[in-house]
Each structure stands twice: as structure tokens, then as C-alpha cells.
């Protein structure tokens, strides 16, 4: 009982956190009146306190405002890249899953080659091709996530395609197109949606990682990975510059994971 209560409380906190971060992304003005780009040469590297809850950086910019405004980029990249990967992954994966075996075999060999690389390295290589930059980071992490979605979409398609209910529909004389629309795609999407919820977190971390390595958006853009990177040389004097962006990234990813897992459990309960 107590455990269930703790899990429930965790779920609520996670959901609230996600809502808050989403609000930050949509309407940062609600959280702080300060301009994340406004410098102040008199307020350099102030520790957290009244007025600057997360302290200030080397040019006197308010870290809280920077973190709040950073949500829009980080979350945007996370959600955008994941959504794009999800849509493309579902389309390609479903088609491949429904295609004749030869096509399936060739396509999956290709996906397997992509899967040969760690996601983060694919993102790095994509950056090598595209060049650094904010849009390219989103593309790179999306490309990196894509193979996994294709594979899962295909696997789910195959599971659904071989499932009793698709066979039953076939036995009832339902047209294959109708089977695809009314059974295969919806049942494939459900688990993928859950994976994508968790995937947003992964994508945010990957994008922040690229920014951290200096391959993403550049100063003065407030982006969490970049903010973190900006603090790496200040660890000894000004821990807060690197600390708070990290808290936000971790918090967002943890929340997305908690909510995603809850959704998955709900989905599993329904399935069996």
C-alpha cells in the first residue's frame, strides 16, 4: 500500500514537472520577468539568492531566466525530433513490416547497419555531415533515433500482422487495407507512443550532449546542454552555472520516463 502510494506520488510529481517544463517552453514569461540575454557587468557570477534564484553567469545573465527560456529549445528539439522520428519510423516500419519478405530483408539489413552504431555516435556523424547548428542538432538526434523506431514499428507490425485478431479479420473477409487501417496501425502506434514518451527524454539528453560538445546552438542561445557546458570551467568557483541546467535536464528525463513507464504498464494491462 505504502509502495503504491509512493509510486503514485512519484507519478504526480513527474507529471507536474512535465507540465511546468512545457509551460516554460511555451510561456517563459510566466516564470520570470528577466531577459535571458540581458547582461549586467555589475552582477557577474553571483551565487543563488534573492533576485537570482539560480545565480548569474560570467556576463551577469540571470541563470534562472536562461534555464527557463532554455526549455523551449531543449523541449522543442526533444519533442520535434522524436515526433519526426516516430512518424517516419511508423510509416517506414509499417510498410516494411507489411512488405514482401525480400523488401523486408533488405530494408532491415539497412536498419541493422544503422543500429550498429551507438545512437550518440550516429548523431555525431550526422553532425559531421550536416555541420553544427541548432536545426542540425534536431535533425541529427532525430536521425539517430529513427532506426530504433523503424525496428520497433516493424516488429510491432509483424506481431500484429501475425496476431490472432488480424487472422480473424482475414477469416471474416475484411479487406487487407481495412485490416491495416483498423487493426495494424492503431495497435502498432500504442506501444510506439509509449516508447516515444520515454524517447523524448533520450533525445533531450542526446541534443544536450551535442550542444555540450559545442556542436549545437551557440551562446547566447539559452540551451540546457550549452548552459551546462558554459559552467564546466567554473565548477570550482561557480558550481551553480552548471548545476541547475543539469537538474532541469535530469528532472525532465526522469519525469518523461516515469510517465512513459506508467503508460506502458497501462498498455500492458490492457493487452493481456
Amino acid at each position: 500500500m505504502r509502495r503504491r502510494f509512493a509510486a503514485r506520488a512519484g507519478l504526480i510529481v513527474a507529471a507536474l514537472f512535465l507540465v511546468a517544463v512545457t509551460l516554460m517552453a511555451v510561456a517563459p514569461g510566466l516564470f520570470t520577468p528577466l531577459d535571458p540575454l540581458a547582461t549586467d557587468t555589475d552582477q557577474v557570477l553571483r551565487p543563488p539568492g534573492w533576485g537570482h534564484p539560480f545565480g548569474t553567469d560570467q556576463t551577469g545573465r540571470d541563470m534562472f531566466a536562461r534555464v527557463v527560456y532554455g526549455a523551449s529549445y531543449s523541449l522543442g528539439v526533444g519533442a520535434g525530433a522524436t515526433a519526426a522520428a516516430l512518424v517516419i519510423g511508423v510509416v517506414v516500419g509499417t510498410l516494411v513490416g507489411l512488405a514482401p519478405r525480400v523488401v523486408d530483408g533488405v530494408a532491415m539489413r539497412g536498419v541493422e547497419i544503422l543500429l550498429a552504431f551507438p545512437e550518440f555516435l550516429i548523431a555525431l556523424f550526422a553532425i559531421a555531415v550536416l555541420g553544427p547548428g541548432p536545426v542540425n542538432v534536431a535533425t541529427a538526434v532525430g536521425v539517430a533515433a529513427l532506426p530504433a523506431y523503424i525496428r520497433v514499428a516493424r516488429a510491432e507490425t509483424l506481431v500484429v500482422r501475425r496476431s490472432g485478431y488480424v487472422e480473424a479479420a482475414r477469416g471474416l473477409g475484411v479487406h487487407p487495407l481495412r485490416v491495416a487501417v483498423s487493426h495494424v496501425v492503431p495497435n502498432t502506434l500504442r506501444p510506439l507512443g509509449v516508447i516515444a514518451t520515454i524517447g523524448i527524454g533520450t533525445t533531450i539528453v542526446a541534443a544536450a550532449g551535442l550542444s555540450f560538445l559545442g556542436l549545437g546552438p551557440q551562446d547566447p542561445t539559452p540551451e540546457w546542454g550549452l548552459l551546462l557546458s558554459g559552467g564546466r570551467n567554473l565548477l570550482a568557483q561557480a558550481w551553480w552555472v552548471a548545476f541547475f541546467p543539469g537538474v532541469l535536464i535530469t528532472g525532465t528525463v526522469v519525469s518523461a520516463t516515469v510517465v512513459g513507464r506508467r503508460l506502458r504498464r497501462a498498455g500492458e494491462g490492457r493487452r493481456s
Partner: protein
Amino acid sequence: MTDAREVVRATGLTVRFGPTVVVDSVSLSLAAGECLAIVGESGSGKTLTARALLGLLPDDAVLSADELLIDGVDVRRLSEADWRRIRGARVGLVSQDALVSLDPLRRVGREVAEVLEIHGDPSSGDRMPRAALDETVTAQLGRVAVPEPEERARQYPHELSGGLRQRALIASALAGEPGVLIADEPTTALDVTVQAQVLELLSGLRDDGLGIIVISHDLAVVAGIADRVAVMRSGRIVEEGTTVEVLSNPRHPYTRMLLAAAPRLPATPFPEPSFPEPSFAEPVEGSRPSTSSGNGPSTSSGNGTSAGSGNGPVLRATGLGRDFRRPDGGVRSAVDDVSFDVLPAAAIGIVGESGSGKTTLARLLLGFDAPDRGSVTLDGQPWSGVKEGRRRSRRGDIQYISQDPLGSFDPRYTVSRIVAEGLRGGPRTSSRSRAARIRALLDSVGIDSSLAGRRPHELSGGQRQRVAIARAIASEPRILVCDEPVSALDVSIQATIIDLLAGLRRDLGVALVFVSHDLAVVATLCDDVLVMRDGRVVERGAIGEVFAHPQHPFTKALVDAVPRMP
């Protein structure tokens, strides 16, 4: 036997999960050399009772008892460590499926030896050296009649046949020389011929002085081995007595219901079948002269009054064959040269053990799979070898009931939507008439319309199978192919589903092809039967004839192995 040493004694045995009582004041006793059967349907509490005797209840279960003695030891207050000294040494467990009840990643010999490693030499309690261990393992495997025990000990469970596996599992439970063996559904996963052998083994062990508690859902199975029977329902023992008493003169209504519901293979002489006079049609080409009653494909005709068009067969299979590639590259014929006709409103059973090809045959008939040889015609028109696009409109004529209704439902669909999918013409009919039709269909299979909004996982097993049937008959098919439709259900539910199918046949004139491993179920429902083995039909004919006078040795063995009530 009554004067023999008492090895288990329990009074007032109660198991609770929180406030819920799942085993309620059960009292039982077992003497050495005696076999007690605990019989009940799923949820009756029989398995938890058995677990309580091993101290293996789930963590959140609470056990209480006025008396609980295992081999003379009061086990009510035992610590986990003390229990470990009891388990394996004084009481052993054999459960349902040896493929998963033996650790699949360990060699059989290691599994048998484990109990000796834990408890040491059963006679002295000393730690056993490796050589002695191996020797004992071989001896124990030999004791349960495993041939070439040394070699088998080095194999993995999946490398053994089902019967040998189960024997090995029994050997592993007996290696510690316990006085009590708890056998939880010990033969449920086995083919009927193998089941008979295992039951025989258990009887032998009992005769050697072992106390055995058999847990089963099947009265017939325990009839041959148990000295006494306890019938459980909702956590209570509703009736207990000697096997003969309970089976021949059941006092409790539940026991009577169980006995009535159990499909049985009546003793010879076989009574008149429920449908008059099966008749066999003229042989067609491709038939084989190996069967007892005639050389041709059997054509059975029912007397269904409302039956559909014409006198020609609804379904005709001619020389069907289907091959599969084995993992080692060889070719195995799952179905080979099978021919038969199904007349309108007829009911034909296809029986065989696992791997006999009966499910593959069903898939060929349904057009889910294409035959490598031979053909299927439906209503005189070609059915196999026809493009799916052209076949689709005719699919309503032949419908399918599977063993796993849950898997055959889209988990997102409601009951009414599931049934609606089966309606012919789909969305073209007006929604109001559709709704009425769906209600009527659900009504006809005994599903209350209040369940129409439920999703599959919210239904019971029996309800699910009814919904599957409602969907199947929605298109007013001429023939239903049923693949083990009741195997996963409790006996009482089984009986109602069989009644439902029989009623449909009678009322709608739909023909049935009924695939099952269970001879008794087939006997209750069908007129004619095909007996399959290794993909071939080894015997065919009217039910009564085949079961009463089996000609083929395999059929004989099959019929003989069916457990019978006294």
C-alpha cells in the same frame, strides 16, 4: 492402508490474502502408500492448498491451521530455513509442465542431483561426493523407468520427450526420498497415451509406500490412481470420500455437476449417436484403402432441418498435403494425403495428439495456408488455390473458432465492435439494424447485452469464447472450423460451450469441423471422426464404430489411454 503411518495431517488449514480467504478450513490426511486426489476447477484453492503443504505460499499470503504435520513434524511455526530442511527431504513436488518446471538451462542430471546436493545422502545426510551423486542420479532416473539414464542425465529438458521429461521431474522430486509427493496436475500437459504411462508410474510408486497428493481438474484422470478424492470449490472441500464412493455416488451437487459436465468416452457398447446414422459417400479418387470403414473420404450428413442448399458437400478436401522445412534442412509433411467431405450440418471430429497435423489441416481448410498438394472446395467451388481477393466475399461461408479467443480480438475493440466486424457487408447495413443484429447474435450465444461495451480483457474465458462464436456466426456461415475451442476452459464451462455449438448446429444447420486432442469432447459433439497421426489419417468412421472397435493400433492405444470413470 488405514493402519499405515500418517504422513500428512492438516486440520483447519486456512490461507488468506489480506481479508480474502482463498483456502477455508481445509482438513485432510494422507497415509504412506496412499494417494489422495484434490479435484477442483481453476480458482478452487487446490493449488494453494498444495503449496501450503510445501511452505511455498506467496509472500503476501497468510497461513493458519489448527494442525499441520508433515511426516510428523509440526510445520506451522517453521522458519524459512527449517522449511528448507523439510522440502525435498520429506515432501517433494511434481508440477504440470516439466519443460518449464525443470530449469531449462540445466542438464537433467543436475536437476535431479540438486536435492541431494542440498540435503546430502538421504540415508545418512552426509555430503555426497560427485561420483556417488552421479550414481544416485542414474539410479533415480532408472527407478522412474527412464531408458538409458546415464545418457539422459547429460541432456537438457527440451531434448527429452514430454513423457521422459515428466519422469525426470518425478525423479528429481523423489531423489531426496521424501515420504510425501505432491503432484500438481502432473499429466495435464501430456498427450493422452503418455498420460496413461505416467499415471501408471505414479501408481507404482504409491504401491511402494509413497504418499501422494494429486491435484487435478480432471476427475477422470484421478479416477484410476487415487484411493480417496477430495472435491474443492471456492476454497472449501465440499466432498471427500473414497474414489469409488465419490464417483459412483456423489453427494454434493457440485460434484454431480462436475461429473455430468465431464465429457466422457462411454464404455462399450457405444450408445446410439445423438444424430442418426452416419453414412459414407462413394469414394473419390486419391483415397486410401487403409481405414477400417470404407476406403473413401468420409461424408457425413446431418439431419439438420434448417440446413442449407443442396446435397453436395459443403467442404471437400482432396489429397491435401503440406510440407514444412525442419531446422536441420529436412522436410516434414505436417499434413499428407488427407481427403474427406463435410456434408451440410454434419459434424466431423479430427483427433490426434500434438504434432499430428490437425491444426495445420484446419488452417488449410480455412484458406489461411495454401496446400502443397491436393485441393479444397467450398460449396463445390474451388477454395484453395484461389486468389485471396476473389475468395474474400466467400469467407463468410466458412468461419473459424480458435483455442485462444483473446488473441483473436483486437484489444482495443469492444464486444459489439468485435461482433460487428463479422457481419457481412460491413458498414453498408444501417446502423440501427446492425445494432439489433449484434444484440440478437450476443443473445443467441448467451452473452448479456450489458457486456456489449466491454473490452476482451474484461471478460471471462467462457464469455470470450462465446463472443468469438457470435462473431463467427454473424455472417451466417455454412461451416465452422473449430480448433481446440474448449481446451483452455474449465470442465463446467467446457460443457456449456459444447452445448452451445451443438445447439448452433441444430438450429442454424451449420456444419462443424471440430479439431481436438480430447476424444471424449469429440465423442459428445461429432458424428464422424478422423484419427490423425504424423499428418496422415490412420482411421476414420462413425464415432461409435471407431471408438468401440478401433482397427488401427494407434487408435486402439489412444482409446485405451483415455482415463475413464469407474
